[in-house]
């Protein structure tokens, strides 16, 4: 494999605080809080999966929070965002309502998908989250079409497709890139390159570790960034999204990152991972997007340990309350299985 990502793929690099000069305190704090909230919500899910409260699989994205949070700073509620199997962060970055996420993962009727979806099928269209679905790459053409629809509707909304580095090995991604380009669809392709597809490292799956090469192949402008630097993600996205909304067609952003948990559930998966080690995981944890932002803000005297403890305590207690509430919520009525097969939507 050609290591085109160079240092960006290295667990030993980018451990220092990030550059925050481009942002004010308010926007930095917003991103910091959003990332911590997502991290804590997922840690709660990991714990509950481990102790058996959660019956189904959870695909956790701890370590990757800067991507969804950085991207979402440029999105509006009328945009059309599509996720995949690992989409808790994509949704929570648009709507921090972790209570409804917990309820959904527990299969409760108060959840985002009325308890019919669980972790892998999340929906919150009023906040721009059109849906996540776990067929790898299955939602990518949907985002292209939702973008085409915005164009036909004369709206300046955009489609957003979150795509993993494994998903680009599916043919549909390349059809979708091509179609988006020839249709000039207003869509942002977000590549979350964590270098793993399930258990297997990208070096065993592709001839290069840089996914942006497929943007080049389709004449789609792109940016390649450190996915663990929320300011870098946010700045690159702002520029790309502005260009998309101006009518200049699809764009791609590749964010290089690493997931702390294994493919599914709470384990490290060092045993089943191919080219995955505890050393790598520990090093990547030192490249933590939250820590790097927090340290940068502390150095700039915008943030301190006391405020951090206060925020952590506040979120911990809110999560505890939300979890208990969700645990006590009702399951869907037994007729739900047949009730929703055909449309209940009134247009």
């Amino acid at each position, binding site marked *: 494999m050609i290591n085109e990502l160079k240092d960006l793929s290295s667990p030993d690099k980018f451990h220092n605080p990030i550059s925050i000069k481009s942002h004010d305190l308010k926007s930095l704090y917003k991103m910091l809080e959003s990332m911590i909230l997502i991290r804590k919500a997922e840690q709660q899910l990991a714990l509950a999966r481990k102790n058996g409260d959660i019956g189904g699989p959870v695909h956790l994205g701890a370590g990757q929070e800067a991507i969804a949070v950085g991207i979402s700073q440029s999105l509006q509620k009328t945009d059309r965002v599509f996720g995949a199997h690992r989409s808790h962060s994509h949704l929570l970055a648009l709507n921090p309502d972790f209570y409804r996420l917990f309820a959904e993962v527990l299969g409760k009727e108060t959840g985002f998908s*009325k308890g019919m979806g669980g972790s892998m099928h999340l929906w919150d*269209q009023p906040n721009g989250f059109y849906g996540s*679905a776990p067929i790898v790459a299955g939602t990518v053409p949907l985002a292209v079409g939702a973008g085409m629809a915005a164009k036909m509707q004369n709206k300046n909304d955009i489609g957003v497709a979150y795509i993993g580095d494994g998903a680009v090995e599916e043919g549909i991604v390349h059809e979708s890139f091509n179609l988006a380009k020839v249709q000039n669809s207003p869509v942002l392709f977000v590549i979350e390159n964590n270098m793993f597809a399930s258990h297997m490292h990208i070096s065993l799956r592709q001839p290069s570790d840089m996914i942006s090469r497929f943007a080049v192949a389709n004449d789609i402008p792109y940016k390649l960034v450190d996915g663990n630097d929320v300011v870098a993600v946010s700045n690159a996205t702002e520029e790309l999204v502005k260009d998309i909304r101006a009518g200049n067609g699809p764009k791609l952003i590749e964010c290089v990152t690493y997931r702390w948990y294994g493919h599914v559930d709470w384990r490290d998966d060092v045993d089943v991972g191919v080219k995955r080690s505890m050393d790598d995981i520990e090093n990547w944890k030192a490249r933590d997007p939250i820590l790097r932002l927090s340290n940068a803000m502390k150095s700039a005297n915008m943030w301190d340990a006391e405020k951090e403890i206060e925020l952590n305590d506040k979120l911990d207690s809110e999560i505890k309350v939300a979890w208990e509430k969700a645990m006590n919520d009702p399951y869907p009525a037994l007729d739900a299985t047949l009730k929703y097969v055909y449309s209940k939507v009134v247009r």
Partner: protein
Amino acid sequence: MNNSATFKKYTYGTAICSAFEYLLENYPEVFVIGQGLWSPWYVGSSMTDLDKKFGVDRVIDTPVSESACTGAAVGASLAGMKPIVVQPRMDFMLYAMDAVVNQAANWSSMFGGQASPGVTIRGIINRGGEQGAQHSQALHAWFAHIPGLRVVMPSTVADARDLMIASVLCNDPVVYIDDRWLYDQEDELSSVVEMDLTTQKPLVTQTGTDITIVASGHASFLARETSIQLKKEYISSEVIDIRVLNPFDADVIVESLIKTNHLLVIDSGWLSSGFSAEVIAKVMERLPVDCLKKPPVRIALPDAPAPTSRVLEKAYYTSVNDVINAVKNILKN
């Protein structure tokens, strides 16, 4: 008699085209996407000049990407559009199975009824002419198996137009399947009256007393021809056109059998695990034990891919004579 001022002559093919025109004229959220739409010689008379009348932004010819185009239509439908995807051959539509089966069919259920991809996918059965295995398949039974999809097979000129309009106006994903062998049928139609697809059911197209023949799509055409021929021999057959294969309502067939006591099912797909099996199963579950005087019979394609060689091809497809003989065989003492 027909009032010539309000009735107009159509073929099955031009009736489909008139449905597109009606939809594009009256519903700005309708658009059409698929291969060959700017040069629609693939699809007979069913889409002539739509791009010229409604513009290339609403009648979109595409790259050779069935999967992406169908997926894009699903996404557009979630965003409030009413797209129609045209798949000039069902065989190629298999590339789009993820968008149809995993995505469109499941989104309502997966999200507790909050999302509904109201997309219509028109799959055309285009066979014969020594085209062989990959240009011939009638795969309606596959789609009828999937909860969440509505599957429509018009066999008459009126349904070709009216079920298309009903499909597109429906909030659910619909697979609308037409058959090139039906395109030359003629009829006179009055102006459009919109129908609610969710209330459409199998219809008795010919009434009779001796036997019930149940079919869909082109097989319904064979059934109607058979019924006309049999009448000359004083055999009275009742023909039921299924029209909507999923969700499938068997009530009208059950009622008919209580009268005729004999059942023949014709299907334009293969025999094994085909839709003919579903018809018989659903009906037999409901009929009184001694209702049928003879075991039910079905005619479908042999369990083999379509051959190309003309002699083999002729024997492979069902003819009106095959159906007549089957009826006589059932009714003989």
